[in-house]
């Protein structure tokens, strides 16, 4: 019945995403004429060799990374919110991003470099970083799951997540203390969030991993809806709670780990986008929520990335300076109006 809305929103978002995608290719520190950009994308000869390099090797992977990352972290947020039955959960707040960051920090200390800053591409290194991020994220997830079985209060669990995040950060600080200033600097840059960390060669691996996470999420739509009823109701409907919970967290873990490893801990997209999707659709049915979340996440990521390159030759604005401007007001709005917002009940 409300399908019309959904279809209209989806079409609108797709159009907006396409426009934003090309805007991301067009806008940057080097001015490239629109016609030249189109020619380069069409595979034609570029007027300047450097333009072709900028479009194909820099802006295109960055835009594609934003495209996948936005959808990925937004979906991770949605999954965590349903899995913990907590509308304010996301990888950042629960400390999972920090865990991934810790994994990355350890790997960087051992291998001495950030994947994005590596000259040339070495799959084994990037795999190690992703694996490190995943182990870190999974570790924190396990700790949070452990606490979730003891602490039933949603808000208390979030505070525990924040505490665990602080603990993780303190370990990271220790690691930084023992590192060279170059390593600290590259880690700091990584922490600001950036979609440019994935090179053209790494892109297929990145996109495939994020896609696996997204496909897994689509597969989980049916049990996700049953989980809205709580564990016992869901179990009574034949949901294998343990398995579904494991898959949900695995999926959220993969998405958080891979995006965090390459792009840094990007805040607020995972937290706010599912709310924007729910507020727009009015529903908590994952069947329509999931595609909306992916599209809005992608839209937000591309928009934030576009804003980050607006200063032009003056440099980049870190992503994590932009995402809260969109995300924080949404969360504040949701909290202030939670009595009126139906999906809270």
């Amino acid at each position, binding site marked *: 019945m409300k399908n019309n809305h959904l279809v209209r929103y989806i079409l609108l978002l797709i159009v907006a995403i396409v426009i934003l995608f090309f805007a991301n290719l067009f806008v940057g520190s080097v001015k490239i004429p629109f016609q030249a950009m189109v020619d380069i994308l069409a595979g034609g000869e570029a007027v300047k060799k450097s333009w072709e390099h900028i479009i194909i090797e820099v802006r295109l992977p960055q835009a594609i990374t934003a495209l996948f990352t936005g959808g990925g972290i937004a979906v991770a947020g949605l999954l965590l919110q349903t899995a913990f039955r907590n509308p304010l959960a996301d990888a950042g707040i629960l400390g999972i991003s920090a865990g991934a960051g810790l994994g990355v920090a350890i790997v960087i200390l051992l291998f001495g470099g950030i994947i994005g800053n590596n000259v040339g591409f070495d799959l084994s290194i990037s795999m190690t970083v992703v694996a490190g991020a995943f182990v870190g994220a999974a570790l924190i997830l396990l700790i949070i799951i452990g606490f979730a079985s003891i602490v039933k209060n949603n808000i208390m669990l979030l505070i525990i997540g924040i505490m665990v995040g602080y603990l993780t950060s303190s370990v990271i600080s220790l690691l930084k203390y023992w590192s060279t200033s170059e390593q600290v600097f590259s880690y700091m840059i990584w922490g600001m969030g950036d979609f440019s960390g994935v090179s053209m060669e790494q892109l297929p691996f990145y996109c495939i991993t994020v896609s696996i996470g997204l496909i897994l999420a689509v597969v989980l739509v049916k049990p996700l809806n049953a989980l809205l009823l709580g564990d016992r109701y869901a179990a009574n409907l034949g949901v*294998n709670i343990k398995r579904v919970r494991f898959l949900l967290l695995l999926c959220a873990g993969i998405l958080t780990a891979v995006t965090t490893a390459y792009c840094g801990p990007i805040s607020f997209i995972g937290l706010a986008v599912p709310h924007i999707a729910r507020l727009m659709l009015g529903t908590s049915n994952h069947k329509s929520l999931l595609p909306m979340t992916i599209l809005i996440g992608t839209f937000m990521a591309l928009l934030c990335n576009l804003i980050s390159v607006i200063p032009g030759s003056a440099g980049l604005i870190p992503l994590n300076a932009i995402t809260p401007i969109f995300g924080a007001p949404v969360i504040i709005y949701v909290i202030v109006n939670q009595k009126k917002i139906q999906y809270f009940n």
Partner: protein
Amino acid sequence: MNKEPIISAQNLSIGYPKSRNRNTSVLYEDMSFNLYAGELTCLLGSNGAGKSTLLRTLTGLQPSLRGEVNLREKNISKYSEQQLSTLLGLVLTDKTIVGGLTVSELVALGRYPYTGFFGRLTKEDHQIVEKAMNDVCILHKKDSYVAELSDGERQKVMIAKALAQECPIIILDEPTAFLDIVNRIEIMNLLHLIAIKQNKTILLSTHDIELALTLADRLWLLARDKGLKCGVTEDIVLSDAINDYIGNSTIVFDRQTGRFVSEHNITKEIYLEADGELFFWTKNFLSRKGYSLTDNATNELSLKLSSSTGMSVIRNNRTEILSSFEELDLWLKG
């Protein structure tokens, strides 16, 4: 004249097994019970009697300590979750976050065990969901969000979900808690009708003794020191079981009215002559004031009421005519 039970248990022990920081805690031993199709059974017991533990054991959510619960003559723990989901529908008191689903979406979740990988509903599924909503009289709200419903309507939706699950057995944990009196009666009536019309086995725990007495086919009484007593409602009522299992020294079950009354401090006797509801409410008034009724028409105090002549009261052969209970109160004190 033997009926086949759909759920039965012999010598069942329930409670919590030994764990790291607790010894085995046995709540009840040697429980035996049967549940039959087409009957509404109400489980009554005071708070903390272990009603929820019994329901959990009975639905296979919690393992029994000894003995087994048999569902259609097979141990309930031998069923897979998938199989159980089509046999046993639950309505719980758990907190849900389904406010953002529409009524029909929520009821459609009851089709979960039957639908495919992505939960797509067939035409038949849609019909079953529609019928379930119709059965609980919520069809007119099918496109409303659950958040927009009253507590009573929400409970109906959860019952509809259990109906859409098409289970022969429905078990409800305090379905009338938190509801006002009209909704409580409506829900209980509904469950009673469903049991009869759809030949379902319905077991619910409740504190609504008066409703249970009128609508339940069977009562299960549960008390910590006495165990479980099962029987047809009227058999239970006419034995003194309800008093033994649920009442205490000051709150007693009145078999005449089917209600629990608190034992008043009876000090004086009065003779009362009245009809119908006048008699009932006058007795109510008098017993609250500490008077018991006597059959002795020549008693020192006597009271005659009729709708035509009003109240005539006699104390020590002095007759007065009163017009309200307000005045009667003053007269009794004076």
